[in-house]
């Protein structure tokens, strides 16, 4: 018999790194680090940015801190730095959790944005080879220097703490937080960091992904510039209202707001989807949000449609986001329940926009032109009053003439014959149509 009575099976560090960094882009990797910072704020200060979907919420109303909560990103060709004052990590968590691959504690719920217990590590691997890490809470102040290349060659998986004075990391903020500096950037990362387009793409992603955080008062900076959010507003008037609906599926709260955008909003909208406040789909017009599957395909006539769907749960694993947190999990039952509701709420809105489309094509519309209607109303400040459940309605306040325009194409020779027969060879084409129609009404209907 062979001396070995078992087949070896284990995971190599190289394989692990290869596999977990494969499906994530540089941008998403950076966002994972921002998520981690924001998670601390959510946990420590109990901030719920999804409130800002339905009310005029600012976290500073509940939490009186000496300085604004900030995530500060600094990107250059040589290094990547992210610093926050969002609470920091305790020494115990650092020892037993933060650097573990996957979620080490089974059976407990993780709140916030860290869904898979892998984001920070894979961000490090994706970006560079030397990580300096310092974090402090009210009690602890810990430092780690992680030379990934050296670590790769060791059998030991653990990463030793280092002395604070060995790193050059100094906190800028008074409130506890974390500072991470990544150096020895990988070549593709250096290249990207050098491109202006990359920085503006990153800024855009920060602007969208964290729109609700920004709207709630949290500050995110990229190379010393504040990132600002721009979430579309919903239109409301005496004639048109919007939908605000709350449903619950298992442990997940689902809030849905849908309606029509104001007249000066020229951007084609669609659905905006959030998980625990982080945007995972922006202005979606694809099958992911039901277009072309459970209701009509997107068409420019629906440009003014706007819908927000927010999933929140104290159990991040129950949320229907994809592992890169940009996109949704279509197989999720929670998401499917939401899709059904989205469909239900969207249909009356799309119906109306569809009717408006017809009106717009005509010179004298049966319905008031969308433009006219929207000018008469007001744009409600974003979500200021969506706390109560309402449903979309369109109730014309004044009677408008109920007429329809008909147009059709006929051979000109034939039309000329009709004109002759009608006794006026030079009459306008539109008059021919009207007279022929009247003729039918008189002879067949009366």
């Amino acid at each position, binding site marked *: 018999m062979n001396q070995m009575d078992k087949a070896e099976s284990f995971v190599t560090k190289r394989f692990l790194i290869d596999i977990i960094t494969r499906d994530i882009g540089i941008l998403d990797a950076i966002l994972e680090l921002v998520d981690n910072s924001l998670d601390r704020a959510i946990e420590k200060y109990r901030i719920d940015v999804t409130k800002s979907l339905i009310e005029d919420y600012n976290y500073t109303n509940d939490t009186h801190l000496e300085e604004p909560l900030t995530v500060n990103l600094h990107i250059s060709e040589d290094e990547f730095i992210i610093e926050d004052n969002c609470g920091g990590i305790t020494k115990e968590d650092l020892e037993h959790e933060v650097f573990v691959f996957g979620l080490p504690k089974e059976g407990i719920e993780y709140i916030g944005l860290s869904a898979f217990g892998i984001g920070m590590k894979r961000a490090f691997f994706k970006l560079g080879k030397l990580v300096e890490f310092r974090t402090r809470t009210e009690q602890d102040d810990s430092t780690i220097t992680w030379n990934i290349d050296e670590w790769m060659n060791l059998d030991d998986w653990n990463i030793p703490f280092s002395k604070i004075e060995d790193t050059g990391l100094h906190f800028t903020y008074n409130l506890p937080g974390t500072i991470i500096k990544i150096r020895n950037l990988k070549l593709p990362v250096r290249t990207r960091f050098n491109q202006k387009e990359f920085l503006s793409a990153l800024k855009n992603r920060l602007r969208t992904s964290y729109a609700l955080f920004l709207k709630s008062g949290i500050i995110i900076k990229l190379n010393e510039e504040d990132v600002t959010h721009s979430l579309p507003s919903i239109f409301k008037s005496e004639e048109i209202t919007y939908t605000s609906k709350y449903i619950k599926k298992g442990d997940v709260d689902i809030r849905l707001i849908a309606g029509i955008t104001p007249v000066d909003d020229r951007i084609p909208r669609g659905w905006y989807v959030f998980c625990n406040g982080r945007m995972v789909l922006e202005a979606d017009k694809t099958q992911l949000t039901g277009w072309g599957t459970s209701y009509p395909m997107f068409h420019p006539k629906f440009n003014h449609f706007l819908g927000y769907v927010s999933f929140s749960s104290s159990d991040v694993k129950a949320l229907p986001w994809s592992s890169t947190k940009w996109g949704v999990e279509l197989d999720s039952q929670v998401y499917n*329940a939401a899709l059904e509701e989205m469909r239900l709420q969207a249909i009356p809105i799309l119906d109306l926009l569809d009717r408006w489309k017809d009106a717009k094509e005509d010179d004298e519309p049966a319905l008031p032109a969308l433009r006219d209607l929207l000018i008469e109303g007001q744009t409600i400040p974003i979500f200021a009053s969506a706390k109560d459940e309402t*449903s979309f309605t369109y109730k014309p306040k004044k009677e408008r003439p109920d007429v329809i325009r008909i147009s059709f194409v006929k051979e000109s020779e034939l039309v000329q014959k009709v004109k002759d027969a009608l006794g006026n060879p030079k009459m306008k084409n539109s008059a021919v149509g009207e007279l022929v129609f009247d003729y039918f009404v008189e002879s067949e209907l009366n």
Partner: protein
Amino acid sequence: MASYEKIDYLLRPSKQVERKLIIEILQKLARAKYYIHDYTYIGLGSIYYADFILFHKYLLIDDMICSEIDKIPKRMEFNKPYEFIKLKMEPVSQVLLNIDRGKPHLVWLDYDSPIDNDILSDIHSCIHIFAPGSIILITVPSDLRSLMNLLDPVEAKGLADEKKKERIVQILNDLIGSYYGQEITFRDLGKSKLPKVIAQSLRNFIDSNIIARDELQFFQVINFKYSDNLQMLTIGGIIDYCNSAEKLKDSGIYKIKNVQQYEEPIQISVPPLTMREKMWLDKKIVQLERCFANDQPLPGDMAFEIEIEPVRNFVKYYRYYPSYYETLL
């Protein structure tokens, strides 16, 4: 022209028989603990409110919503038989947004236009929104003549009949082919086949959409076809928890005459008769039933000329045969 303009709803004998059959079945659902009098009824508008009157009288429902999209608000309000009917001048899709989702509903989506995306969409919405225990009834025209309305009239104008049929087959396949389970062909357009094709497709459409509600299932109990003028199909059933299957089976519901849980519609057919003829047949009903049970010819003392088939149909449905002199007020 809306169908209410063409014929008084009450004067369509098969339709009226169907209403009575449905009422009887719904009453008997009490055996499985579905108490319909507590339900909210949602019906599509008609100036006759026939279903509303019957459902109030015989199912004792007094929470009712009527959805009407034609622009005749005054006429609808004027003809409303009961104060408690809530008239909504808006499509079902809008009405559904504001219903109480915790309460069971009975809805009758009674369309006079052929099956299309809007109809499927309404059904889909009901399935998504109704509380467990709710009942959904769907009626759609199911003959080739009605399906012709699916064609774009401009496009259809120059087409030969065969081409039109081809086009209809194509439209049906796009619309419900994936639910029917196999390709719909020319042969499926026949008068006897089409109701089954539509019934099966609707049934599968419901089944495939109710999946999104995890623990719920559709239990079909109604599947009728009849023709007063156009051939119509009605399919209906209960939306309830999967584990209600036992309860329904044990209650004996499926053994009740005229309950149909399968895809083949039960044909309702009533012969046109004068009042005197009907009364004469009523008087002879026991004797006639015996004839049919024993496979015997009609008795020799028939008072008037009539074929055996119409008599057979009369005997089947005599209890539901409309009596027009009894006006519903």
